């Protein structure tokens, strides 16, 4: 994988998703493309707004949603201090970008691969689906809270077999969870691969099924970050490097001492479900 670079990139445009009429919560930020040599799907970038040095110390991590020779697209949710500022960016504004960072989501051409996305967790799968060498082997289950047009679902659906599931009620959610389990069982039988990205409770559910049905599963974590380059040790997760995919029944995944604190930003953000403690 190539080295990250730090560059100043220009905002090409900022497209709100969904027509709720109010302030958009989900937006696609299109930037001029950094001079990256190559990227792997599942990698991320750190973005930092210029000129607010005093207030917000750190950059913020975002999945690479799509990168082409013409642009770098970030799909984000305006939910906190910096992302709400980002929602006010205008074409021509310049921001600091460092990347590509982190490891890749696993790509296996001939393996049936199930993508599980929760909400904003759909972002890295857009690049994944567009660059996969055999997209006919991919399928996706997408759980979402807001109307479908709030998410970049269409651009995925044209590439792969993807099914949306709106989660408005507890029953909706339970149905989605049951479906995920069924689909993971199918992939376990087919010696397939599962990739999941979404909020931590969602990842925990996927992890439980991954261990129960013994299916190879990668989880894309969203840990709070400082530097993004492995230096500050503020983003660590506990990882059992030696844990085998199939742990003995009813035992904890791994004994305490065997866990190592690894940086999510450089050793992740994509970890095997049977190795990481959530």
């Amino acid at each position, binding site marked *: 994988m190539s080295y990250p670079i730090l560059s100043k990139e220009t905002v090409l445009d900022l497209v709100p998703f969904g027509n709720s009429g109010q302030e958009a919560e989900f937006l696609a930020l299109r930037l001029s493309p950094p001079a990256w040599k190559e990227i792997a799907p599942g990698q991320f970038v750190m973005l930092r707004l210029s000129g607010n040095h005093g207030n917000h*110390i750190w950059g913020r991590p975002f999945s690479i949603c799509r990168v082409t020779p013409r642009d770098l697209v970030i799909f984000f949710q305006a939910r906190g201090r910096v992302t709400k500022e980002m929602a006010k960016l205008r074409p021509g504004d310049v921001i600091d970008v460092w990347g590509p960072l982190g490891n890749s989501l696993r790509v296996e051409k001939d393996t049936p691969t199930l993508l599980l996305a929760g909400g904003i967790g759909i972002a890295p799968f857009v690049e994944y689906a567009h660059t996969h060498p055999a997209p006919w082997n991919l399928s996706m289950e997408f759980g979402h809270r807001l109307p479908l047009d709030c998410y970049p679902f269409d651009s995925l659906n044209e590439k792969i077999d993807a099914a949306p599931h709106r989660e408005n009620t507890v029953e909706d959610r339970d149905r989605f969870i049951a479906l995920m389990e069924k689909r993971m069982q199918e992939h376990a039988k087919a010696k397939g691969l599962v990739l999941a990205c979404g909020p931590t409770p969602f990842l925990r559910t996927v992890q439980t099924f991954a261990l129960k049905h013994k299916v190879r599963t990668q989880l894309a974590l969203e840990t709070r970050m400082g530097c993004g*380059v492995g230096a500050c040790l503020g983003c660590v997760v506990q990882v059992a490097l030696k844990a085998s995919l199939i742990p003995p029944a009813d035992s904890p995944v791994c004994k305490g001492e065997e866990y190592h604190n690894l940086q999510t930003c450089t050793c992740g953000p994509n970890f095997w479900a049977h190795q990481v403690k959530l």
Partner: protein
Amino acid sequence: MGKQRITLSGNGRTLVLNNPVLTASGTFGYGLEYTPFGNLASLGGIVAKGLSLLPRQGNPMPRIAETPSGMLNAVGLQNCGFDEFVKRKLPKLPHKDVPVIVNLYATSPAEFAELAGKLAATEGIAALEVNISCPNVKEGGSSFGQSATMAAKVTEAVVNASGTLPVLVKLSPNVTSITEIAKACEGAGATALSCINTVTGMGVDLQSKRPLLANVIGGLSGPAIKPIALRCVWEVTRAVSIPVIGIGGISTPEDVLEFILVGASAVQVGTANIALPDAAFRIAEALPHTMHKYGISSLDELRGGLKI
């Protein structure tokens, strides 16, 4: 622009730096993390992440939090330990072109001496920086830095164990009288003083009613602590005759010059590296130009020249 080499001499030992801009321990990893963003040899020196004899896993998460103009951390000195550092990190650093300074941490003067002895016997290390001030680790750190007697004991242990290697002692601002500690370290043989480590603090989340850090208390760093650091450097440089390295909230070349104006001989850039990965490189590179802008022809002329 001419050479900006800085010579730090004190108590019979000398450290020569490429220029006055170093990186602060714990904010620059082992240096290697930053090679994509600049030339390590363009820095005045590299101070590595706090090292202990054995590897340490550090504190539970969350360990960092953003605060107004700064950040809190309670990383708890997670590090790879002496063996791994010497085998895997040090050989990859351009130690012939840039002084590599090892920040060390231990829980007793004897352990400090053991680690210092091992480091002194290792090729490629330009100096040691003794962390007597880390506020994170309950069993040691903070107590050494808080008593002049203990600070002197640790300094002496490291000085005696390290041959001719220069020994920097890193002071904590979380004390009643920083000058008293500074004088004790000078008296115990320190080559220079690094000033300051983080300021103890905490943050809470009203919504969840939880502390921002799992450790509850952490160390504040970044621009928020710059005035505290300037005050400490000002007081310490007037109390001792060994050189002082200024640390705390430095994020521009102007900040560097401010620290030198109050008496520092060199500086370390910390949290700014976390904010933007080329910060230290950019500050070091821009320093000559900024000096020119303020009509400063040499750092020696500026140093301690505060008009009162």
